[in-house]
């Protein structure tokens, strides 16, 4: 196990700069998720940590060693790829033991390590099979087994669950998390799925256009998003963004919709500025009276919750109700928002106020 220290790492492809100087400190044993939309540079950053991509600038340290210019094989890391990248002509056992074979480990040691990894991952009965004979989830486990056998200082995961179906993804998510809790190896996990990042990581790094938008614990990102991008990216369904101004101690939109201000906001300093008010759909309650009136434009029920889109004085607001409400398209209902759950952002800089 080791810490990973990334300092001012940059990546350019020709004249195009895809990573703009990134600094991340990852503690020994920490599970860090790099999350962001497609093309944000998260996989490139992971590949640079792995040694599969050269750095244009900056420095990467694993433990006390500076590894920026070391080839991948000398970095003492293990990586699980999105497409598993198993050796198609080798059995599961040979796939898992390949790294040890290269290190010229003894047959006894190799068998012991492969058996141990296989028992952790439930692969004992599949050791003699070829990758083509395995299901997606089993291949995923073999890829993890291959990493486990190495006993590396750092585990790198590059969107390992993207090719699995929804049910298997949830199952594997739990298995990876449990595995990390059991062996405690420093893990860097790339995903575009914020739910994966939120449920698995100790720390999340939100990337956008090759830059870090925010680093923090999952709940920190959820409760106090640093800017509009993080606010919109973290949380599902996405946060409502409503444009307006602070007038007479309330937030008022151009259509006349008024929302309460968070206690922390000082109306005196915010008065007159154009702002964005952020409200998470799950923080909106339905009330019998005295709330904000809205017309139901869309209702989607999943059994455990009801997702509804309302038009409140011309502004569209998405709501997620955990109670069973008898709402239908075209109904008019009233909603209330707890002021403490409201976020305010500067419309020009996008930063949290």
């Amino acid at each position: 196990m080791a810490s990973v220290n990334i300092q001012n790492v940059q990546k350019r492809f020709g004249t195009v700069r895809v990573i703009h100087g990134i600094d991340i400190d990852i503690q020994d044993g920490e599970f860090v998720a790099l999350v962001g939309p497609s093309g944000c540079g998260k996989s490139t950053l992971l590949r640079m940590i792995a040694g599969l991509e050269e750095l244009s600038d900056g420095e990467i340290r694993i433990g006390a060693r500076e590894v920026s210019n070391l080839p991948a094989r000398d970095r003492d890391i293990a990586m699980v790829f999105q497409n598993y990248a198993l050796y198609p002509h080798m059995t599961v056992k040979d796939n898992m033991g390949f790294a040890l074979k290269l290190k010229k480990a003894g047959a006894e040691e190799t068998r012991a390590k492969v058996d141990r990894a296989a028992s952790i991952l439930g692969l004992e009965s599949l050791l003699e099979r070829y990758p083509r004979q395995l299901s997606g989830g089993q291949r995923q486990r073999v890829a993890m087994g291959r990493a486990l056998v190495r006993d590396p200082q750092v585990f790198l995961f590059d969107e390992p669950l993207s090719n699995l179906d929804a049910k298997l993804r949830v199952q594997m998510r739990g298995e990876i998390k449990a595995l990390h809790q059991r062996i405690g190896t420093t893990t860097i996990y790339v995903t575009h799925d914020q739910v994966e990042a939120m449920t698995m990581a100790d720390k999340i790094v939100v990337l956008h256009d090759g830059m870090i938008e925010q680093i923090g614990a999952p709940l920190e990102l959820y409760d106090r998003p640093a800017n509009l991008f993080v606010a919109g990216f973290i949380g599902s369904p996405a946060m409502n963004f409503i444009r307006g101004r602070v007038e007479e101690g309330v937030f008022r939109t151009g259509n006349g919709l008024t929302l309460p201000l968070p206690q922390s906001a000082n109306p005196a300093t915010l008065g007159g500025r154009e702002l964005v008010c952020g409200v998470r759909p799950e923080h909106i309650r339905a009330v019998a009276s005295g709330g904000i009136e809205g017309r139901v434009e869309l209702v989607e029920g999943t059994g455990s919750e009801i997702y509804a889109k309302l038009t409140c004085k011309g502004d569209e607001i998405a709501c997620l109700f955990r109670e069973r409400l008898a709402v239908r398209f075209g109904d008019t209902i009233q909603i209330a928002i707890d002021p403490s759950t409201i976020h305010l952002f500067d419309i020009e800089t996008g930063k949290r106020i």
Partner: protein
Amino acid sequence: MASVGMENTAAHSGREKGGKPVRLAPNYWPFVIPALVVISAVIVFPWVFTLWMSAHRWTLGQEQSFIGFDNYIRLAGDARFWESLWHTLLYTVLSVVAPLFLGTLAALVFDAQFPLRGFLRGVFVMPMMATPVAIALVWTMMFHPQLGVLNYLLSLVGIGPLEWIYNQSTVIPSLVLVETWQWTPLVMLIVLGGLASIPREPYESAEIDGANAWQKFRYLTLPMIAPFLMIALIIRSIDAVKSFDIIYAMTQGGPGTASETINIYLYNTSFAYYDIGYGSAMAVIFFIAIVALSFVLLMVRQRTNWSEMEER
């Protein structure tokens, strides 16, 4: 409509409603007969006729007589036959191994990206397109001990003149050189196709697992292109074992019988000495040997084909 559907179903299942088998009318024969006629005429009849001839003393201009297995017994004691078999084996092994090795090497080179790759690849495959007899004539001139360009080139680096196809000890390697020159491009194309089809992701895994360039070739590339190497091996083996035109055009089996393969000996026996019966016996034995070789190679191919391993 419903009743029509039911009748069709009954007809397709080959049974009447009562479960009794329906006898299918033999009206498909007109479609099969043309193919059967052609196959019988060009494959079955020649082979049956060859077998029949091999059981006879059959020399052109003389009376034929049935002699059973005498031709085969004569073959067993024919030193020239065994010598030609050895020449065939040597020629085949060298003409398979050299193009396979060089073709794989060339495929690895052409698999990399470099300027003028497409053009150079085109130039490289040109020998394959040339006519064997034309190649034989050009190479015969190049092999000429006094006038040939090869000895001139060797003289530039201080190597004395060789006699190439005019010397008993160098004639087979010289013929193999021509065969290799012509057929290395074919192996290169097959292996290049293989290299293009193998997945690239495992190489990154191997990089992280600690493999160096040689280990990646040894443990990934080579096993993954093994099925393609086997295809090249089968094609080359069958081609080389029955090679005739280049040898006949360049040496006619000479000097003496130093480059006489079974094919040349068979041809000479049948069409120079007109001993058709004995030549037919040779052809039968040679055919059995080629079928056995193909069978062995196909078995080996099955074992190296990792992409079909789950079927076994």
